[in-house]
């Protein structure tokens, strides 16, 4: 074996390279720019409203950061979702998978890019919280549990969005499923008493609520794990299977 000083000209694209490409694809279209602007506006508005009308406990770094995170996390997963479904609705899958025939690698790159975007959004929320608190003049203490909780929350909703996108492979049904199904389950479990117990285990919204608020207690973690498995594990596994067998045209 001779040492190769530089990568062979036909070396396969590295995963970091593919992640960079997917991040770029999330932000270089008109729809992508609009969506990201909308998310930024939502975050800034949440901070602004809290500054004007929030309680004293909300007008702190901790409170403003948390509220910004919740506002941003509402729409952010749609960016991930569209980055998967767009391959089919815009038919770019033909190019994407011709250049990278290992379909699983493309999905891995999309998941990692989504997580990167989620963590970037978290940082932006932190900056917004700091900026807001400069105006509010509240407490500067930041609960680490809340920071980690918010990070995990952001990652979970982003990956859930990507997974639902992968399973359904079409934008409109995926967006509807992502938003309407959890809401419907929530409404159902609120009205049907016998479902309340099980609901804690399969309602992702309820399972992640303490996470976003930084109030996770020991008993919440198994529930979060189960809800995450249902909302991410199942669609992701089925979506990967579907993609593997799917004919691209």
């Amino acid at each position, binding site marked *: 074996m001779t040492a190769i000083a530089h*990568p062979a*000209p*036909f*070396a*396969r*694209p590295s995963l970091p*390279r*593919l992640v*960079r*490409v997917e991040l*770029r*694809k999330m932000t*270089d*279209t*008109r*729809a*992508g720019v609009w969506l990201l602007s909308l998310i930024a506006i939502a975050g800034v508005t949440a901070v602004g409203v809290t500054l004007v009308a929030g309680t004293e406990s909300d007008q702190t770094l901790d409170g403003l950061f948390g509220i910004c995170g919740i506002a941003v996390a509402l729409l952010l997963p749609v960016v991930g979702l569209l980055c998967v479904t*767009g391959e089919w609705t*815009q*038919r*770019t*899958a*033909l*190019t994407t*998978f*011709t*250049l*990278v*025939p*290992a379909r699983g690698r493309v999905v891995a790159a999309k998941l990692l890019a989504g997580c990167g975007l989620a963590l970037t959004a978290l940082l932006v929320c932190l900056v917004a919280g700091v900026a807001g608190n400069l105006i509010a003049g509240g407490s500067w203490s930041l609960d680490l549990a809340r920071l980690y909780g918010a990070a995990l929350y952001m990652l979970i909703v982003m990956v859930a969005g990507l997974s639902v996108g992968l399973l359904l492979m079409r934008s409109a049904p995926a967006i509807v499923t992502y938003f309407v199904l959890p809401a419907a389950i929530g409404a159902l479990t609120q009205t049907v008493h016998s479902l309340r117990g099980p609901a804690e285990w399969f309602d992702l919204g309820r399972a992640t609520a303490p996470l976003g608020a930084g109030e996770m207690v020991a008993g919440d973690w198994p529930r979060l794990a189960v809800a995450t498995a249902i909302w991410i594990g199942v669609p992701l596994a089925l979506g990967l299977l579907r993609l593997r*067998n799917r*004919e*691209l*045209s």
Partner: protein
Amino acid sequence: MIEVDELTKRYGSQTAVDGVSFRCEPGTVTGFLGPNGAGKSTTLRMISGLTTPTSGTAKVLGTAFQRLPNPGRQVGVLLDASAQHSGRTGREVLRISAEVLGVDRRRVPELLERVGLPPDAARKRVGNYSLGMRQRLGIAQALIGDPSVLILDEPANGLDPEGIVWMRGLLRDFADRAGTVLLSSHLLHEIEAVADNLVVIGDGRIVAQGGKAELLATTGTVVRAPDPDALYDGLAAAGLSPLLNADGTLHVDASPDEVGRVAAGLGITLLELRAADGGGLEQLFLTLTSTEAPA
């Protein structure tokens, strides 16, 4: 180099591609010819790893397409020029491909120039492109990795006459530099003008393949006389079974030499005497791919 061996694709009870085999050698342009729905696109998708064959194999540069580590650097593929994100600019589409393949970004403006997309067109979103512009962008995308094999599905669709001539030149030049080109078309003239070899497909099966000259070669003689009937009778009497064409010429299954001698022996004046040219690929194409013979 492309090697297709007994490639078959079934959808339920329907067979879209049925035992297709052919080879494309470096330095040649192979035309993949057939009417719409004959199985051309399915075959090209199977070669490019997008569709899994029911049976059979396809190899590009000696290996399955999916096993090429960075396929875009070795094989340029354009299967559908309209399959582009409408909200992305043409230049951005190329930049993304360049990034995936690890190609120098400076190739992007070079290639845009080469395929005839000037900077102001490259800055526009693909949604505003005509089909011809999308084809040019698709060609640029196929070429950006500097591949040695090109696989193009109906690349002439939507191009204006000037664009079609440009495309022919580009493909010819690519093959002359030892590249392998496989292009499909349902338009005979496109293929006839540029291809060295032909693979003709109809209803999922290969109905003819070979060198263009070989496939075009036909036997027989075309002869014209002021009095076709007298010539007809004379040739028939000599045992040469002539056929009367609509334009008044006779087609005879014999050499011009033989036909001329018969006419001379009967003292018949001839206006025209030549080897039959077969009427181009059109005739071949129609004969080979039509399932119902016209009445």
